[in-house]
């Protein structure tokens, strides 16, 4: 059996692993760090212009072979399993959570508090923003205080978004450009400047939108990490006689019958909200029959994230769809809920849109439209006001039965049951679903009152929870949590879980910056211990 030894073995190769390794290597030069990732490395940045073009022209997925056929989960929001993870094709949104997210229990009597202080988390937000080279403007809401400016000014608003900001702010809400992890006007960190290809969620031809593959390549080149890709870790190995983790068993895609044993003093599980609890559950032993790190029985529970409500509006103002479809406006007006009012928290987002303004082959009465007639009919709709896309991510507190379980009906090539995620709201969140919809609808309607606006249809609730997290929640009490505030598991002193899985609740806006911030905090703690 091949054996690979290191000081720290990181299982998972996504954005939180990249950030943790980068930080750890800074704090502890010479530390031997190994990253083990089930998916492959996709380091062919020279081809990304071609991938971009083919994604636009043919709809082709630009990240070739970034998934493993038999390693898929029910209820997972992305198939991607590769070095860089889902942040290979994220939009780059870098919103902070608010202080209220950490104090839901003490402020509102809901869900649970996080076991860390906002002021401390805020310093890690600053570090995360620096590493991701976030472009943002200070929030117009003074409660959203920050201790350091963003590394770059916000991405300039397109003409369209300027028009939409003027429109949206007539509601009395304040909007600002969405903070983005993009190099705005010059290269940074080995990545190019933004060329506004507007395909951030697919592939960025210049690398302006941060993706972790760049970090991994830099770390590898500097000998700060050894990366083993295409190596699926199927089991963590417990020591005989104590609760330390002594190994991880990996199986390479090309050598499915050969076990590679990873030995390390410290193990970091950085496989996201799905595969981290999955591995712990898979690694059950006679002493931990319900899975490792699971004396609390909470591994795979409190799966969170947030639901969202979407709507399309039409307004009188003129815009030109296609200027910058991936940039947006955000209002943090409802990040906090006044005392004595029914509880509701959400962000409010605005995008330019071309919905309802696509070319059509036939007129309303069924007449075939050709050439200039088609263009004329198209213009008659396109040039008449503007379409606007609206969305609100809202507080969706999970119940303990919001779960990831092992699904015996779906197994990989080794016979391991795959994860099944079924999210559920807790009783209080379920009870306020209707009121939340009413509130968000009223907010959208208030916005549309300006410029003869109207909602095109009734706002709709999401069919999935976005920005998923949870499954190994942090807490001070080992009876009610899986790990401490640093991600160190209560049951195994040399095992950390980092990032999304550790979040007790999922906030009301994009989660990646928070996943990174708590992971950087984990890195600091780990550096103290090593």
């Amino acid at each position, binding site marked *: 059996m091949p054996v690979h030894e290191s000081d720290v073995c990181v299982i998972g190769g996504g954005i939180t692993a990249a950030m943790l390794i980068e930080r750890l290597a800074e704090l502890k030069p010479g530390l031997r760090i190994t990253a083990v990732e089930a998916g492959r490395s996709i380091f062919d940045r020279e081809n990304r212009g071609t991938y971009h073009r083919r*994604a*636009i*022209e*043919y*709809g*082709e*997925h*630009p990240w*070739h072979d970034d*998934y493993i056929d038999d390693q898929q989960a029910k209820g*997972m*929001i*992305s*198939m*991607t399993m590769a070095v860089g993870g889902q942040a290979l094709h994220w939009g780059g949104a870098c919103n902070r959570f608010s202080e209220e997210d950490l104090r839901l229990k003490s402020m509102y009597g809901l869900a649970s508090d996080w076991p860390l202080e906002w002021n401390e988390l805020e310093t890690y937000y600053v570090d995360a923003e620096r590493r991701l080279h976030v472009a943002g403007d200070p929030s117009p809401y003074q409660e959203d205080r920050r201790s350091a400016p963003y590394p770059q000014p916000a*991405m*300039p*608003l*397109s*003409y369209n978004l*300027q028009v939409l900001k003027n429109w949206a702010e007539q509601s009395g809400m304040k909007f600002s450009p969405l903070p983005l992890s993009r190099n*705005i*006007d010059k290269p940074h960190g080995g990545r190019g400047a*933004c*060329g*506004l*290809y*507007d*395909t951030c*969620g*697919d592939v960025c031809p210049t690398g302006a939108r941060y993706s972790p593959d760049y970090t991994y390549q830099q770390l590898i080149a500097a000998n700060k990490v050894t990366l083993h890709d295409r190596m699926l870790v199927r089991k963590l190995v417990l020591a005989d006689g104590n609760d330390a983790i002594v190994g991880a068993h990996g199986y390479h895609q090309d050598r499915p019958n050969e076990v590679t044993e990873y030995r390390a003093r410290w193990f970091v599980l950085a496989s996201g909200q799905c595969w981290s609890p999955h591995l712990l559950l898979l690694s059950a032993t006679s002493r931990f029959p319900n899975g490792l790190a699971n004396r609390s029985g909470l591994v795979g529970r409190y799966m969170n994230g947030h639901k969202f409500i979407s709507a399309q509006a039409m307004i009188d103002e003129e815009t*030109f*769809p*296609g*200027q*910058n*479809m991936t940039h947006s406006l955000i209002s943090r007006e409802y990040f906090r809920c006044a005392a004595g009012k029914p509880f509701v928290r959400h962000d409010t987002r605005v995008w330019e849109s071309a919905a309802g303004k*696509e*070319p*059509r*082959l*036939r007129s309303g009465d069924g007449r*075939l439209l*050709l*050439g*200039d*007639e*088609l*263009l*004329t009919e*198209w*213009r008659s709709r*396109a*040039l008449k006001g503007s379409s606007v896309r609206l969305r609100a991510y809202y507080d969706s507190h999970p119940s303990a039965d919001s779960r990831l379980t092992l699904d015996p009906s779906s197994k990989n090539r080794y016979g391991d049951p795959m994860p099944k995620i079924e999210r559920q709201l807790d009783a209080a969140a379920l009870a306020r679903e209707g009121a939340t919809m009413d509130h968000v609808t009223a907010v959208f309607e208030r916005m549309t009152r300006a410029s003869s606006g109207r909602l095109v249809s009734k706002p709709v609730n*999401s*069919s*999935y929870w*976005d920005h998923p997290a949870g499954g190994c929640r942090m807490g001070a009490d080992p009876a009610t949590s899986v790990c401490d505030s640093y991600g160190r598991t209560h049951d195994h002193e040399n095992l950390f879980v980092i990032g999304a899985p550790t979040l007790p609740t999922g906030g009301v806006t994009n989660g990646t910056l928070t996943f990174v911030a708590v992971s950087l905090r984990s890195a600091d703690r780990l550096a103290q211990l090593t």
Partner: protein
Amino acid sequence: MKRRHALKTLATAAAALPLLRVPLEAQQLSSDHVFVLRDVAATVLPSAIGRKGQDEAVDDFLRWIRDYKEGVPLSHGYGEPRLVKTGPSPAPGYADQLASLQAAAKARGSRFGALPPADRRALLDEAFKAADVRALPGRPDGKHVVADLMAHYFRSSAANDLCYNARIGRNTYRAIRVTTVRPQPLAAPAAGPKPQVR
């Protein structure tokens, strides 16, 4: 006389323009088929882009066909992802569709482009209904080559610019500062198409 003049004009134009500027595999479209497609393009694409622009749109379409790859995963999507791969090339039916269209045109007494507008519309209406083409496809899907050509053009960044008469440049490289101001209008001829088919 009028028809003879039109044919002569077309022959002159054909001599000046290579009919098959985009190399295609033999089983796809012959130069005769491409000739028909260019003839049809003048009816189904906007006059504002001119004959040259229409030819370029056909070239782009042919290039798209040539570079099509079968069995390639499409974007998995996000939220409720699923693995879907590109299907067979839409091109194999194109030659027959163009031949049928040309035959139907000849049955009415002329090549497609020389027919009266009402006849051209009727022929395409009939062809689209037979092929169950009810809307512009998101991308060429092989149901009918003319609908695919139209979709390929009208869903392009260039067509978006033409529609709004503005230099938007969707999904193309742009300097950010360019997008922070109202887009500049296109050159004058694009602004006012004159309906061609009645």
